[in-house]
């Protein structure tokens, strides 16, 4: 697919700096439409005082560099570049002169939420920021224009802001933003300017090269794991194998005798070794003989858990959606019934950068270096765990080597703080890959029992689904979910766009001792597999083409546009050779509609090759098609690893898998040909793009396998499914 990449200045021009600009110029305050606290009136601290600020989001240096502060994490999804584009769109600065840095979580505390939530979750970074980031840029531009107009004694309406300069064509005068920033600081606008609509965009909506690419090519990009501080020591940690069990005893002597070892720290359910070098800490840790006290789940295994979830689908349910009377329609005489039970396993996040955190605790101040999707939560957790007031806790967010929903619970930070309290030095605590996989908070295992009825014409008359899945919020301790209804547990099924006349969706939240959490695309990941596989079964039972069958159940133009395009570009209906098949899936999630057609080859021995995936997405408005394409491709392959091999099974109460030799990930050689089509249909809505494309992959592939072999896959991963035809 062709895309136009904006390549102004391909030389190394942009930096994602993690330190704030030093003091030196004039302070600027601006009144944004939202309540903005006066910046220079706050208590002075290096993180608050930033004299060349136009507002909390934008600093303009005398050399005309525009520094944009980011309240969202960059974990590969391209949000940093998109946020800067929003400002630049309005500010009319020179794109080759933009820079960005993370906004300060500490300042967010001190200035009562000037940077808002600072959470990067829910595929919401771009779509929740676009209005106010544009406003920040527009406001700054308007004040720069007024400053110039004042200086020239010319009407502001005759002044033009473009390319980092304000000019007055009538008198042939111009000044750079950098020269005007000081005066602009003193100006209060009578009225804040309107922001551009998407129809007026010149920069947003165009494929733009990522600002963070250059440092990621030469080793200079810093991730949390790369933190280095004077006097820093390193810690390696291992948690008990069984979830919920405790540490019984460990003989520290063998570790303490080794070179460079500083301490062995005993935690409630883990052991850490601290040394002057990470490898020394890890090697010593591996050597220790640790005794764990078995907990109440020491004999739990996946066979039991799998059965428990399937059994739960036949038990009591909390109603998530009721339209019409599905029970009656299912019982109607002449109704053709289709029933199926589907199951999916726990899935690990496996970011390429294992979880890690560096902390420095002082009596009156705590500093944390971490890659976090939620630096405010990290800050508050650090404050609580150390007893230092939040105003004195500083979270220095870094590039994340993958987030995928894992980097918000800060389990690694809890460990780091516990260790730092003991050794009283700056500590970098790094999780091994085994620790990272085994102490993950998984995409939960789940089961669903479906029942549907078709009339004589093959049209669905009833759709009944009973879901059993763990509650994420209960597991995270975030909410007891008193009413038993968690949106993530039922999304995409209870919210389906299919127009079944009678619908009954029930859910039973079932948590075990296995920790679960938010995994890229969350409930859409299992529920799209469930419903898009079952709708395929329904189509087959009706003797109809799966594309036509879906089409007849949808009446939304945006849905139909995605469905029709993916069928067209995916060559739906064209013949395929023996052992080859095509499958499709479509879903609305995070405010976008995403559909995929997958082509597979299944050998007679049952080996699966995913040959091609055609993906279509309508996200309504697009900030940067370049990075959206990356997210679509990336999400597809993330989902493929999961459907083909992904599972974390439980034995003796703990996870079996630990590293890439047991938790297999897709390689370059296994990646299918991917074709992406972005069809943003416009309007006021912005859809998210970081997660949606993970969701349709599993059902598209499994439906393709059905087309190729006649075998219906109802339990993942595929590596456990026998597709032999010899």
């Amino acid at each position, binding site marked *: 697919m062709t895309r136009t990449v904006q*390549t102004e200045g*391909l030389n190394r021009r942009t930096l994602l700096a993690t330190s704030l600009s030093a003091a030196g110029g004039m302070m600027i305050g601006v009144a944004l439409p939202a309540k903005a606290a006066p910046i220079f009136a706050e208590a002075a601290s290096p993180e608050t005082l930033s004299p060349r600020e136009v507002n909390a989001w934008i600093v303009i240096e005398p050399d005309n560099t525009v520094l944009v502060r980011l309240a969202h994490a*960059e*974990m*590969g*999804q*391209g949000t940093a570049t998109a946020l800067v584009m929003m400002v630049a769109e309005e500010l009319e600065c020179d794109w080759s002169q933009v820079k960005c840095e993370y906004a300060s979580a500490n300042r967010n505390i001190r200035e009562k939420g000037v940077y808002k939530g600072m959470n990067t979750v829910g595929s919401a970074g771009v779509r929740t920021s676009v209005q106010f980031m544009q406003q920040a840029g527009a406001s700054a531009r308007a004040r720069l224009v007024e400053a110039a107009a004042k200086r020239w004694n010319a009407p502001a309406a005759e002044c033009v802001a473009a390319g980092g300069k304000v000019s007055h064509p009538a008198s042939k005068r111009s000044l750079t933003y950098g020269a005007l920033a000081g005066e602009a600081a003193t100006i209060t606008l009578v009225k804040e300017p309107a922001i551009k609509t998407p129809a007026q965009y010149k920069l947003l909506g165009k494929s733009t*090269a*990522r600002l*963070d*690419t*250059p*440092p*990621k*090519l*030469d*080793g*200079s*990009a*810093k*991730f949390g*794991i*790369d933190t*280095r501080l004077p006097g820093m020591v*390193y810690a390696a940690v291992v948690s008990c194998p069984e979830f919920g069990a405790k540490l019984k005893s460990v003989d520290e002597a063998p570790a303490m005798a080794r*070179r460079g070892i500083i301490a062995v720290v005993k935690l409630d359910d883990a052991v850490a070794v601290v040394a002057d*070098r*990470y*490898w020394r800490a890890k090697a010593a840790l591996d050597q220790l003989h640790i005794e764990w006290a078995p907990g109440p789940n020491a004999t739990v295994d996946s066979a039991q858990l799998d059965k428990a979830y399937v059994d739960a689908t036949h038990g009591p349910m909390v109603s998530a959606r009721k339209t019409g009377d599905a029970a009656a329609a299912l019982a109607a005489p002449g109704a053709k019934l289709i029933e199926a039970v589907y199951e999916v396993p726990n899935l690990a996040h*496996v*970011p*390429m*950068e*294992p979880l890690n955190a560096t902390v420095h605790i002082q009596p009156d101040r705590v500093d944390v270096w971490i890659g976090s999707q939620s630096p405010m939560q990290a800050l508050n957790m650090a404050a609580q765990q150390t007893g230092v007031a939040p105003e004195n806790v500083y979270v220095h967010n870094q*590039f*994340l*080597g*993958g*987030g*995928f929903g894992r980097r918000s619970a800060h389990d690694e930070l809890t460990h780091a703080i516990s260790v730092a309290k003991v050794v009283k030095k700056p500590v970098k605590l*790094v999780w*091994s*890959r085994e620790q990272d996989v085994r102490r993950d908070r998984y995409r939960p295992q789940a089961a669903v029992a479906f029942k549907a009825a078709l009339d004589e014409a093959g049209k669905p008359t009833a759709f009944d689904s009973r879901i059993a899945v763990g509650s994420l919020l209960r597991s995270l301790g975030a909410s007891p979910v008193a009413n038993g209804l968690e949106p993530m547990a039922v999304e995409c099924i209870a919210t389906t766009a299919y127009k079944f006349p009678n619908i009954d969706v029930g859910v039973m939240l079932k948590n075990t001792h296995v920790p679960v959490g938010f995994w890229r695309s969350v409930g859409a990941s299992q529920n799209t597999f469930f419903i898009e596989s079952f709708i395929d079964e329904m189509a087959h039972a009706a003797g109809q083409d799966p594309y036509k069958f879906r089409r007849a159940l949808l009446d939304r133009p945006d849905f139909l546009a995605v469905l029709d395009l993916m069928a067209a570009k995916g060559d739906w209906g064209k013949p395929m050779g023996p052992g080859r098949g095509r499958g499709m899936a479509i879903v609305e999630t995070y405010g976008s509609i995403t559909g995929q057609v997958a082509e597979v080859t299944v050998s007679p021995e049952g080996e699966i090759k995913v040959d091609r995936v055609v993906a279509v997405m309508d996200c309504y408005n697009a900030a940067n098609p*370049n990075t959206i394409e*990356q997210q679509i*491709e*990336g*999400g*597809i*392959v*993330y989902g493929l690893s999961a459907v083909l091999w992904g599972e974390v099974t439980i034995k003796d109460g703990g996870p079996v898998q630990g*590293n*890439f030799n047991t938790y297999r*990930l*897709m*390689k*370059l*050689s296994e*990646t299918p040909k*991917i074709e992406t089509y972005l069809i943003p249909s416009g309007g006021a809505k912005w859809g998210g793009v970081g997660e949606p494309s993970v969701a349709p992959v599993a059902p598209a592939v499994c439906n393709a396998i059905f087309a190729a072999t006649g075998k219906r896959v109802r339990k993942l991963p595929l590596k456990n499914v026998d597709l032999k035809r010899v």
Partner: protein
Amino acid sequence: MITLKVNGKQRQLDIEPETPLLWVVRDELGLTGTKFGCGIAQCGACTVHVNGVATRSCVTTAGSAVGKDILTIEGLSPDGKHPVQQAWLAEDVPQCGYCQSGQIMAAAAFLKTKPAPTDDEIDKGLTNLCRCCTYPRIRKAVHRAAKLAASRKA
């Protein structure tokens, strides 16, 4: 004491010979461009060159690298203008970027052995893992780098 030649410089290091090269370059020398991903040579995030050969440094001991030329991502080019880096830039390959040092080092060494690779040869030659799944762009960038390197020679 162990002497290692890293990025053209001789370094005297007071370390145990069994220390993996990965942790030598990261923690002793502060060259954090080479990354830790798995520790069992499965992912390739730790890829460096030892005597020009792509090597997974997490399972390569410092002792075994004595007397050899070790090159990390920081030493691949003085100015980011290695053909692989230029191709990666043009194709905008990285997403989170964590695996990319290893990918670039692996690709650079690979292209020395296969200057005009087919897709099949790329499949067999590049086995580094990427979790953000930048593979489609990596493949394009490898072809682009091959052409770029060839045009520079011409």
